[in-house]
């Protein structure tokens, strides 16, 4: 069957360097990111294949968001859902809204083509619990058809206390609540109004109700053993100093992760903040707050702030391949194919970790760390052409080895119709402060342009593991004492 060939070929690209199975399946000596050590075993087992919660998993596993929840019950100053551009990537934006049965067809189509799929989430584009019946009906259909998929939902928390029993009964074990404040005075500058108990509330009163409902929902979920992540949007001048207090409040109530995301603000989005000159944080400001919050915020540096209809590995969006008009007859799901992929991933995770450790042992690095950018389409490998990269994964490489520290997009905002010259300028701007960019291949002209901008283009490690390659490259560079020329 054609879809089988597609899926197997995507498995095949990982199989080239497979050796004996390493036999590692859990955290500990191999396979896990270092930061996973900060989590209890039971939590890690739940998230180890979840691309949004585990940095390591995000190289191997895909998620999809299904847009069955168009309506919202609060207004945020950073949100305007009227705007929809297919080239744009930010929460609250979708290209088409789905009924539960359509959502199931879409999930079946994606599961048949994307063996990496491990998670289905409902994150809007409105609020998943504003009109919860559609959300739960959708989850029930998906769980019946594909019980191996993890179910997640994302909510502003206003209606959460009313639905905790149902969430637990349906086996939804990951919930994200967006909590931007624990002080209603600050909340009043973020939320102009909420709709609750058949009326609209405004100002501090609205923010107080929202805050109380968020805390009650968080406590009730964690009491049931459901994993709760808290998302906070970092809004400079409004809640940047306040997020420490938010962190303490949500940790005290059992949230297992606190993810601080940058405000995305641009006048063209038509949001209140965008139109009123409220800026987003600089990468340095974001990192400072994440550092203040400690280990749990570090775990989430791979967050891509996905669209409410995103499909694929984080950083890629295959949503356009699975729009309603492209969905044919429901495709049968082949569990064998998924099991094969899981076996490949298990070996790959182990091999990648071993390669990293071997490189660290072989190369003693004394120099100060540098940042490198990687063009990858997943699998923890350098496997993407420079010109095809919409984003780069950023690694810090130095005496402590190589570790993922974030990502930079070259197309974060909808620019539309940019030619080759503009694309190169955008890429160079995104690579500010980066010592080298690792890719599978790069043309002579882009290489020269990068060199002029002070960025070394490295394609000598094409299709190799990211961390081991970065460490080996850095060791060679420090040995030669100069910026080494590469093939």
């Amino acid at each position, binding site marked *: 069957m054609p879809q089988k060939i597609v899926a197997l070929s995507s498995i095949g690209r990982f199989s080239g360097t497979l050796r004996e199975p390493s036999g590692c399946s859990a955290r500990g000596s191999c396979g896990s990111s270092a930061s996973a050590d900060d989590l209890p075993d039971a939590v890690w087992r739940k998230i180890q294949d979840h691309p949004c919660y585990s940095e390591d998993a995000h190289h191997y596993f895909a998620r999809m968001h299904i847009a069955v929840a*168009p*309506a*919202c*019950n609060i*207004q945020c100053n950073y949100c305007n*859902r*009227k705007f929809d551009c297919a080239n744009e990537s930010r929460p609250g934006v979708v290209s088409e*809204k789905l009924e539960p049965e359509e959502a199931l067809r879409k999930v079946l189509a994606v599961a048949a083509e994307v063996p990496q799929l491990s998670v289905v989430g409902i994150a809007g584009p*409105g609020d998943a619990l*504003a*009109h919860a019946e559609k959300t739960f009906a959708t989850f029930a259909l998906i769980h019946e058809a594909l019980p191996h998929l993890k179910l997640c939902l994302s909510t502003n928390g206003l209606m959460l206390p009313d639905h905790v029993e149902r969430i637990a009964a349906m086996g939804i074990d990951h919930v994200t609540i967006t909590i931007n404040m624990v002080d209603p005075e600050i909340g009043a500058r973020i939320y102009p109004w909420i*709709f609750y108990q*058949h*009326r*609209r509330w405004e100002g501090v009163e609205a923010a107080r109700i929202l805050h109380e409902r968020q805390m009650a929902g968080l406590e009730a979920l964690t009491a049931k053993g459901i994993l709760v992540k808290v998302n906070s949007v970092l809004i400079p001048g409004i809640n940047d100093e306040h997020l420490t207090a938010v962190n303490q409040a949500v940790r005290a109530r059992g949230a297992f992760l606190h993810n601080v995301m940058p405000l995305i603000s641009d006048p063209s989005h038509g949001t209140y903040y965008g139109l009123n000159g409220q800026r987003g944080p600089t990468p340095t400001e974001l990192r400072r707050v994440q550092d203040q919050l400690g280990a749990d915020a570090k775990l989430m540096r791979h967050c891509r702030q996905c669209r409410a209809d995103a499909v694929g590995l984080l950083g890629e969006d295959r949503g356009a391949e699975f729009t309603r008009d492209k969905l044919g007859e429901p495709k049968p799901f082949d569990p064998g194919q998924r099991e094969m992929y899981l076996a490949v991933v298990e070996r790959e995770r182990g091999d990648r970790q071993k390669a990293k450790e071997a490189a660290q042992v072989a190369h003693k690095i004394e120099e100060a760390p540098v940042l490198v950018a990687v063009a990858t389409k997943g699998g923890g490998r350098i496997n993407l052409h420079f010109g095809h990269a919409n984003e780069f994964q950023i690694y810090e490489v130095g005496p402590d080895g190589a570790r993922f520290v974030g990502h930079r997009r070259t197309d974060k905002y909808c620019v539309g119709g940019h030619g080759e010259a503009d694309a190169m300028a955008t890429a160079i701007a995104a690579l500010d402060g980066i010592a080298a960019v690792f890719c599978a291949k790069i043309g002579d002209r882009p290489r020269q342009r990068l060199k002029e901008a002070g960025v070394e283009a490295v394609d000598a490690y094409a299709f190799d593991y990211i961390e081991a390659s970065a460490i080996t490259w850095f060791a060679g560079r420090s040995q030669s004492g100069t910026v080494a020329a590469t093939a």
Partner: protein
Amino acid sequence: MAFKIIAENCTGCGACQFECPNNAISSKGGLFSIIAGKCTECKGIYPTQQCAAACPIPKTCVKA
């Protein structure tokens, strides 16, 4: 006595349809409209019109 939806403002989110106590809001192809004969402007049920209170876009659910 009825409300109406200004079509060009409507985002199609459906918040109004869910909140309407009279089942007076219909949708076709993602566009929502109020059936005037069914709309009571929520009189005697709620203190404010539910569609207007729930709608994310100002001045979209208005008096016809």
